[in-house]
């Protein structure tokens, strides 16, 4: 069971290898990557920043919850911070379990909880040169507050 903030590219194959076991019949991998458009605006890159002490603690709590709920210790999560470009992996989650339902449910649980709780922020860079902190709780709308 591991959850880390990282500042280097995430090696997804390594996460899979980390959770592998002859006891596991099912491995699930979630890979989050930087998309080229958000709310209709072309994206050129993103900066991820965090309240590091709390983000680490919250990631660890989420993984511990997944371990308890889904009955596997074999959960490995990395979230990357810093400047990322299109297609870069922002988050990698690997879970293995004897059975596929629990394996997939655990991976889903982890990503959904990360998105709700972990104090990580994303500043998007757009093709028009502007940059903006992303607020996933806001409904899409044409005019937004911009931080230059």
């Amino acid at each position: 069971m591991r959850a880390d903030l990282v500042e280097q590219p995430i090696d997804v194959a390594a996460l899979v290898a980390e959770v592998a076991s002859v006891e596991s019949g099912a491995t699930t991998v979630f890979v989050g990557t930087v998309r080229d458009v958000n709310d209709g605006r072309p994206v050129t890159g993103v900066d991820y920043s965090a309240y590091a002490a709390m983000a680490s603690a919250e990631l660890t709590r989420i993984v511990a919850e997944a371990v308890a709920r889904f009955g596997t210790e074999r959960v490995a999560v990395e979230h990357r911070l810093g400047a990322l470009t299109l297609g870069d992996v922002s988050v990698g989650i690997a879970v293995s379990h004897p059975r596929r339902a629990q394996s997939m449910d655990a991976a889903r649980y982890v990503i959904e909880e990360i998105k709700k709780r972990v104090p990580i922020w994303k500043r998007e860079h757009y093709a028009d040169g502007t940059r903006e902190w992303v607020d996933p709780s806001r409904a899409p709308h044409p005019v937004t507050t911009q931080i230059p």
Partner: protein
Amino acid sequence: MNVRVLLFASYADALGADALQVDVPEPVRVRDVLSVIQNRAAHAVPPAPLVAVNAEYADMDRVLSPNDEVAIIPPVAGG
């Protein structure tokens, strides 16, 4: 009581700092610290933001101790 409040992302930009010191008469609750910040923030910090004390989410009525680390948490966007 002197309380150090950590700021991040859009709130740090709006207030021009990564951290602020606020002085509040005891007993100090989270909501009291938040009031001071909101008075300085001119609507950049909403009425009921997420707040953390010592790296865990806390509610508005949490009573603070002298060395508690308080943070105001803008809408999160991890994953």
